[in-house]
């Protein structure tokens, strides 16, 4: 097989017009990949600070960005998400949307409010701050 190998080695590794950076681009993660973003809200903006005493700032955070193909190991997405992605990419049905970037985990929020009767309430509410995103 010496001849075969040497003839293979003679061949150019890549066509002359090949662009290496273009080739590697497909392996880069999308710039705006699905991830957590901050959204700092102060209750005074909503003019609710007269009865929501604390916290002064509330950052519910939100998930935004494109879902890459390899959603499984990065986001713990179920296989269904990859199936949906394939259907979307192959345009088998244009009513099937691309998988969405949504919150997967939340943390609670403690709120101190003045009630209409003038009493004061400290309450802890579930699922008020997004802490992790996923693709579904």
């Amino acid at each position, binding site marked *: 097989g010496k001849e075969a190998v040497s003839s293979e080695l003679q061949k150019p590794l890549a066509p002359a017009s090949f662009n290496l950076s273009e080739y590697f681009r497909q392996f880069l993660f999308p710039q705006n990949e699905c991830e957590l973003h901050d959204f700092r809200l102060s209750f005074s903006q909503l003019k609710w600070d007269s009865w929501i005493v604390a916290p002064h700032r509330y950052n519910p955070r939100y998930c935004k960005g494109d879902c890459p193909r390899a959603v499984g190991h990065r986001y713990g997405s179920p296989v269904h998400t990859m199936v949906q992605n394939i259907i979307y990419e192959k345009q088998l049905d244009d009513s099937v949307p691309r998988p969405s970037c949504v919150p997967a985990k939340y943390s609670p929020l403690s709120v101190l409010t*003045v009630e209409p009767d003038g009493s004061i309430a*400290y309450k802890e509410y579930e699922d008020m701050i997004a802490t992790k995103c996923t693709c579904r």
Partner: protein
Amino acid sequence: SQASRGEAQIAASAELESEAEPWSLLQLPGGRDGSSLLSPFFKVLYDGPGGAPRLQPDSVALRYMKRLYKAYATKEGIPKSNRSHLYNTVRLFTPSVQHKQASVDQVTGAMRSVGLLFNLDRVTAVEHLLKSVLLYTFNDSVSLPSAAQCVCHLVLKEPESSSTTLPRAPHSFSFESQPVFRKKYKWVEVDVTTLLQPLVASDKRSIHVSVNCTCVKDQLQAPSARDSPCSLVPPSLLLYLNDTSTHAYHGWYSLHHKRSPPQAPGRRGLSACPTGEETAKGARSRHRR
């Protein structure tokens, strides 16, 4: 075609919503008032700007609750994980009717305070009472001996306006109570949990309380401190509650669930091991582990 029409509708309603005031976003479709279906927090948000005007809270009570908030939550409002209590709600009520200013008798140290009426309408049916205290506030010039031993007699009355037909005899309860002297706050807490438990559980929402506390002073106290006048603000009522609704945070519950060992895949459900002893053995080994 359906998708594009649907997207057009979504875009149109999004435009409408963006111009609306934030609290109207909480309306249910068709304009029906959604406040009754909303969780308490959104109900508060919903009632806020357009709801009934709010009564101003007592400034001393507000100061106490702000310090309680700092003790339980971070600046961002995240509940601190080092808390060991089961309650996820604390409500502070100031008495809506007090007959006269409470005072402290310099000789016996008796703190005398007459009838107080607390309106507990804000306590919801899903909030279960865990602990309740009367919170006495000492103004700055007061120096109550920290070693004082107080005995409080609480008399509970049916308010005149109550619906009960026969006026019930007043109850008398005596408490051997070590008030919690928190030097930093100058607050004294008198535990009244056993007194209020049956009332809050029976949805009684207006509570008429008359409290007489007698504190035996520490004889080592400097004479000047004994003679200083003590004027007491009538106590507020503090309820520590566990909100059992799905919107409330049950941190102790999720902590407990984290501790229980995760089920191995083969062990899920009885069908995996039909014979009883297998599960007993499984349970024994898990228990041992």
